[in-house]
């Protein structure tokens, strides 16, 4: 709450002409925004350019920022939309996994599978599987696991309901498990 009040104060001063204060937001959010975008666009130069675009857009629309959510949620939303537009422009196609393959996997199997982080080979496979996810799913797990954002904030960023987010998180885990097992099966 204190952070929100502080940020609103900065926004007012920036809108009043103290442009230099925008560096406060750059210092605080450039790294997490870049981390989010690089998950969707896995190219350093492109991700950095999109990070720049995100901040320029945020600066342009600063006057339109309403206090109905935190500044970070608002900024993440801009970053997400910017990155998704970039994937559309570049016509990146994401593979689809047959739903029937993942429906019958018990929850416990998936829980056990993701609980360990010692198997380097498995981690590599997991990284490759993450690449197969669509932008929304990538953002979902990045915000939930890396940035540790609350479900309500993620819902606000992605424009979905909290219940929808929870269901999607379950599905993403299943999907990732499915991709890895499918690849192992194909490899023989």
């Amino acid at each position, binding site marked *: 709450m204190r952070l929100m009040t502080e940020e609103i104060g900065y926004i007012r001063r920036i809108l009043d002409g103290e442009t230099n204060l925008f560096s406060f937001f*750059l210092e605080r959010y450039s790294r997490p925004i870049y981390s989010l975008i690089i998950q969707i666009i896995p190219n350093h130069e492109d991700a950095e350019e999109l*990070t720049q675009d995100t901040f320029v857009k945020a600066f342009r629309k600063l006057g339109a920022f309403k206090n109905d959510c935190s500044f970070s949620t608002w900024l993440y939303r801009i970053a997400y939309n910017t990155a998704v537009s970039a994937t559309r422009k570049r016509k990146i196609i994401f593979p689809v996994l047959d739903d029937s393959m993942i429906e019958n996997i018990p929850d416990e199997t998936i829980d056990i599978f*993701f*609980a*360990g982080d010692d198997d380097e080979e498995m981690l590599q496979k997991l990284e490759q599987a993450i690449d197969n996810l669509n932008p929304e799913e990538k953002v979902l797990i990045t915000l939930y*696991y890396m940035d540790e954002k609350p479900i309500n904030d993620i819902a606000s960023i992605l424009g979905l309901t909290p219940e929808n987010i929870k269901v999607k998180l379950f599905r993403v885990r299943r999907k990732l498990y499915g991709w890895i097992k499918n690849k192992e099966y194909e490899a023989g």
Partner: protein
Amino acid sequence: MVGLKIKSMKRDKALIKALNNKGKDSLSYGFEFQMMRRILVEAERKKKHSFILGLSLISMVSVGMIVVTIYVLMHYVSFCTYLTLPDISFSTETQSLFILYCYIALLVLVLLGLDAYFRKLRHKGNEKES
């Protein structure tokens, strides 16, 4: 049920590690400095844009008011320019007075221009110092 499952998902260490591995790249050195320069350019552009917009609005409103005034004078007050405005004739005496007034007006404009210019310079200097 969903709440409990969500809590257990926080223990997905493999996912956290894989995401961290994927996001190891970091921003270029001087990113924030470059970004701040871009923001300052954007701020200048925004200022110019709002100035032009304001000027256009004022011009439009002024033209509108002039048009309305002329319309009202012509159609409702029966204003006649021929009867109201006196004939203007220039004698040598009024001509020299006219030149003097023009000279004073020009001088005032130059001084105002210089004032604005030096104010801008001082403002820029203050910005650099801060």
